């Protein structure tokens, strides 16, 4: 603690803290840095890794996960979890593809409808969690089952082939804006930027953090926690809808199984991106970067000669390391505070 004339708080001298701590606090920067370092290492073994064509290909798929992860992050920041996103993606993907195949709607309307379906399913989750007070893990475990069942009911064994989609519908997954940035990456960037602005600069955004950070204090301040939770689930559903539409564009051929099992990757991306499952902390940019990180890892493995069988194990280790680092940082911070005060 500085003993100068004016009153100084720890916050003013925080910059003196260990470099490591500062580094780890800025999860987005450190993740980006880790990606750069690992990328450099991989490209020593496999120079093809750091080529525009490879990176854009990876980024397109990762963007879908990133969009879904942003919604999941929002829910996790409010101290909840949404396990049903993958089923929402599946329902939306099939609905959009099926509607296009049967020419019920034209492409823009189908996209809007798909996102609307996502919103609707998200709102259903919101009602069950915020209104019926079912713990989110139970509620969304249930809706995961229900939505997936719904998907099978709607789809049956029908598969919408690529040829069933209007010509050019899948182009956004494969074209670059101005020949540079894949359009999917642009979508993800827009979602991240918009989300960041909303979370940082709107009353709702700050309430999301407040509810997750200290529910009791939020209640004292009169923050409508249930409404905030409901909104978070709704937005998560909406973004799952966006991801579902992107899914159709990327894979082209859609049946009732689209998205099966990807919720674990989405939650993993959020955790790796530095969003605490205890709520209240983390950014959606981090979550999106987490998705990109996992996507790059999946891409790099075969290039460095590791079989894909290593992927799962590496994901597991990455998750464990990420949460352990968070815990160590927090504990170190607390100890530092205690020691400073003991002086």
């Amino acid at each position, binding site marked *: 603690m500085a003993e100068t004339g004016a009153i100084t708080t720890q916050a003013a001298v925080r910059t003196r803290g260990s470099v490591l701590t500062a580094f780890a606090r800025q999860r987005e920067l450190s993740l980006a840095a880790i990606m750069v370092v690992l990328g450099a290492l991989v490209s020593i073994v496999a120079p093809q890794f750091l080529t525009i064509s490879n990176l854009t290909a990876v980024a397109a798929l990762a963007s879908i996960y990133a969009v879904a992860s942003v919604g999941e992050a929002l829910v996790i920041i409010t101290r909840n979890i949404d396990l049903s996103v993958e089923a929402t993606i599946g329902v939306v993907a099939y609905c959009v593809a099926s509607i296009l195949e049967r020419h019920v709607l034209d492409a823009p309307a189908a996209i809007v409808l798909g996102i609307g379906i996502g919103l*609707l399913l998200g709102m259903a989750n919101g009602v069950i969690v915020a209104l019926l007070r079912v713990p989110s893990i139970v509620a969304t475990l249930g809706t995961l089952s229900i939505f997936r069942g719904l998907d099978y009911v*709607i789809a*049956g064994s029908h598969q919408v082939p690529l040829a069933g989609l209007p010509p050019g519908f899948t182009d956004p997954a494969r074209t670059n804006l101005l020949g540079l940035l894949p359009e999917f990456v642009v979508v993800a960037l827009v979602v991240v930027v918009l989300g960041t602005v909303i979370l940082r600069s709107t009353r709702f955004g700050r309430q999301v953090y407040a509810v997750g950070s200290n529910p009791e204090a939020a209640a004292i301040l009169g923050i409508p926690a249930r409404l905030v939770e409901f909104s978070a689930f709704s937005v998560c559903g909406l973004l799952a809808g966006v991801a579902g539409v992107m899914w159709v564009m*990327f894979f082209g051929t859609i049946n009732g199984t689209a998205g099966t099992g990807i919720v674990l990757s989405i939650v993993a991306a959020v955790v790796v991106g530095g969003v605490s499952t205890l709520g209240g902390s983390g950014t959606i940019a981090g979550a999106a970067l987490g998705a990109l990180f996992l996507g790059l890892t999946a891409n790099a493995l075969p290039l460095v000669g590791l079989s894909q069988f290593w992927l799962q194990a590496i994901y597991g280790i990455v998750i464990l390391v990420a949460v352990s680092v968070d815990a160590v940082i927090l504990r170190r911070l607390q100890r530092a505070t205690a020691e400073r005060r003991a002086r």
Partner: protein
Amino acid sequence: MELRNVGRTVALVSVAALVFSACSGSATPSPSAAASAAASGAAAGITVGYLPKDIVNQYFAAAKTGVDKAAGETGGKVIQVGPNEAKPDLQIPFITDLTTQKVSAIIISADGKDEVAPALKAAMAAGIKVVGFDSSPAVGAYNVFVNQVDFSGVGVNLADWACELAPSCTGDIAILSAAATATNQNAWIDLMKTTLATDKYKGLKLVDTVYGNDDATVSTQQAQALLTKYPNLKVIVAPTTVGILAAAQVVKQAGKSDSVKVTGLGFPNDMKPFVKDGTSPVFGLWSVPDLGYLSYQVAAKLVSGEITGKEGETFTVKGLNGDKPYTIGKDSVVILGPAFRFDKTNVDNFNF
């Protein structure tokens, strides 16, 4: 307050119902609707359980149209059951339940030959005829296995198509398979490797075999990695309908349709755009509905006692094999016929 919530919920539910009814269309065949009671002929009135690997895959839906057609012609009844994920442990309860229901026969695509064997043997012990199709249960756990295609034939076909697509039959090729546990995939790949070892194909170099698990995401990632890892790759051979589609999409996305070609086994409906844009000028498959049709006919003949499944028995099925007789071969296997080659001259004639 309470009432308003109820009102809102009702509104929400009705909107949802409207939306979802818009999604599901005529494309969905109603399950087990094919059950027609009208009995005629020797195998009339039999009930057959149709158990695909999973009920979501359109391959099995296509096969079922053949099964239903045959049942409709003979007056039998088809019960379609099955999991929504292709996993052997999920398939077993359906076998035991069909046994409980005392169906006349079970037509099954086994999701693991050893896994389902005990349950199938129990079914056979209960007097139920078992017909395998598409993917074989273990030998002894079926009465007849209807093989879609001659294994060695497909191996040769795959090698031939790769040779045709690689410029002057030289350059790097790679295989994108399904799960490495898949019996038929591995058989084809082995036979393809044998074929590649012959002189005609010495210009082709098989650089890698990767597995996409018949999962769209994994197959896509694997195909992307192949493109990145082998800049000189000429052909990706994917003997799986999921894999060939993923590979074609990845190649097209990378803008490499001219330099990298994709071939293998795929659905005409999936591959039409890629045949036309030159990403995948040639690929193959057999007539999946015919496979279902033959399987049902075999099941009916087993039930009626016309055949027993012994090696050397012969029978004819009207409309298949040019009305010539089929012969049951070693391990009670019947082969539907050779793989069918699709290219831009004929692909538009098919709809499955």
